[in-house]
């Protein structure tokens, strides 16, 4: 699994450019591929283009006045750039948005049930609900409370659970760690890993928390100002000196103290 290229590719993004509002060029040629059954991490700082990449794939860009102007996005070999989000959900690609976006005034259970909107069978929906509750027992306890009143961690679980209700093949997970305590982040990623192994769900996740993401992902892409600047199996990225220094805060001498950082001592090689 570590060398993703050998397994069949589920999602293939090649050289896409995204422009917001007809003027702002956000992605300047991003290419990536996600193998079936893989966990692929999209890393990078604020404004690197992680969220935009995910939204370009899930086609949520249109409602934000963004547009894919170049390149192509293939899912199982089919172009998906012109489909609307609901068709994509039916095809098995669903996005969990950054910042959770639970339906605040609906109960947790109602939130989960809206996830099954594209599904027809009531019986399957009931089964899926039970399945989601086995992965997130906490949600079962809070099923009758309004989602707006649950904690950040519970809302993240609710958002992931809601996506699961559509029986997805691929989940695009945007910043699952946002605003959560380290222990909870670990819990969420543990569940992502289990879903991947037990249910065969493929994940493409955008993360700022490089450390956690690289421990759970199989493969990683590093984005910087709208370009992929480095990619490789997660294990290699973890060992890469540049990644260590710029994203993991480690140098050859172990953990770096902020006192020592006067300027970038070593230029990032990829920025010429």
């Amino acid at each position: 699994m570590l060398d993703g290229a050998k397994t069949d590719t589920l999602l293939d993004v090649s050289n896409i450019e995204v422009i917001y509002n007809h003027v702002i060029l956000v992605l300047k040629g991003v290419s990536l591929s996600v193998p079936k059954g893989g966990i692929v991490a999209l890393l990078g700082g604020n404004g690197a283009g992680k969220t935009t990449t995910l939204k370009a794939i899930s086609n949520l860009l249109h409602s934000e006045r963004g547009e894919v102007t170049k390149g192509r996005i293939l899912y199982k070999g089919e172009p998906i750039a012109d489909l609307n989000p609901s068709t994509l959900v039916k095809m098995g690609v669903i996005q969990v948005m950054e910042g959770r976006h639970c339906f605040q005034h609906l109960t947790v259970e109602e939130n989960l049930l809206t996830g099954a909107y594209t599904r027809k069978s009531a019986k399957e929906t009931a089964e899926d609900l039970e399945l989601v509750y086995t992965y997130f027992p906490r949600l079962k306890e809070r099923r009758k409370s309004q989602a707006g009143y649950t904690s950040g961690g519970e809302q993240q679980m609710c958002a992931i659970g809601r996506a699961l209700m559509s029986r997805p093949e691929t989940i695009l997970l945007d910043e699952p760690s946002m605003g959560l305590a380290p222990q909870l982040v670990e819990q969420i990623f543990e569940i992502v890993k289990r879903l991947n192994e037990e249910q065969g769900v493929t994940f493409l996740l955008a993360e700022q928390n490089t450390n956690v993401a690289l421990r759970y992902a199989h493969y990683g892409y590093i984005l910087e100002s709208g370009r992929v600047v480095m990619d490789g199996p997660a294990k290699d990225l973890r060992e890469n000196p540049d990644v260590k220094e710029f994203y993991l805060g480690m140098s050859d001498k172990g953990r770096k103290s902020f006192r020592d950082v006067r300027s970038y001592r070593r230029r990032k090689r990829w920025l010429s």
Partner: protein
Amino acid sequence: MDPVVLNTLEVILNGLMAGVMYSLVALGFVLIFKASGIFNYAQGVMALFAALTLVGLQTGQVPFAHLINAIFGTQLHHFGWELPSILAILGSMAVMILFAFLVERYILKHLVNQEPIILFMATIGLAFFMEGFGDLMWGADIKKLDVGLPQGGSFWLEEQTAGWASEGSDYYGMYIDVLDVWATMIAVALVVALTLFSQYTKTGRALRAVADDHQAALSVGISLRAIWVIVWAIAGFVALVAGIMWGAKLGVQFSLSLIALKALPVLMLGGFTSIPGAIVGGLIIGVGEKLFEFAIGPMIGGATENWFAYMLALLFLVFRPQGLFGDKIIERV
């Protein structure tokens, strides 16, 4: 019983039923506001248009007769047949569903993700357009609407209550308009149906989800365009019911669209996002203005019904801006 008590009772009953009539109009606003955050200025005109269509279909009017006559020099006005009320109501409903489609297709679709104020202005434009279009289609004259609902005072109730007064007092029984009683029953049925629909059906849940978070609704595969058509069609249906009730009371004419103004204070009281709120708000305003006029009106020269509702709404805006039942804005710190 003392006639004063009986009079007060009569005022309260009439107030409650007047309130239901306000609620009917307010309901249409709430539905659209909840689902799309749009304050639909055209709701009153939609009621007028629905009522015009109903009368037009019922009496077999030729649509756009004036326009056709002006261009071709013909003398068209009626087809010469009359539709039974029930068919005319169904026909009007079909027209309102078509209207919902057109609004989505030609207005809302192009304004996705715009500021609420822009959508609001679009509905103002829509209101003016509909007003003119309704006149052009069905003519601007005042029409009588009769779908067979009974109207006028109930003699039975007058006789029953006349005996309640204490001996020798000058009391002739209560006056209650039967149409108001019907309106109340229909409104109750409508609200029960809408509540059940939004709480217990998949589409209803999707409607509430869209009301909460457009983006998230899109991301789970709910089609916003379909939802908007559904919401506007339901609002059109509510407008039709309001149009029938108010049209039967006042006649179908331009001023029917102004009933929307009475719905505003109802919404401020009940909250823009709550269906029960629209009902309770309407009842409070109905009873409030009738009682105020009855008890305090004579002391200050009367005609308080014109401003009482707005004053009450103002007080609410100051002390409880989300209204009685409006969604509390949930904010996590």
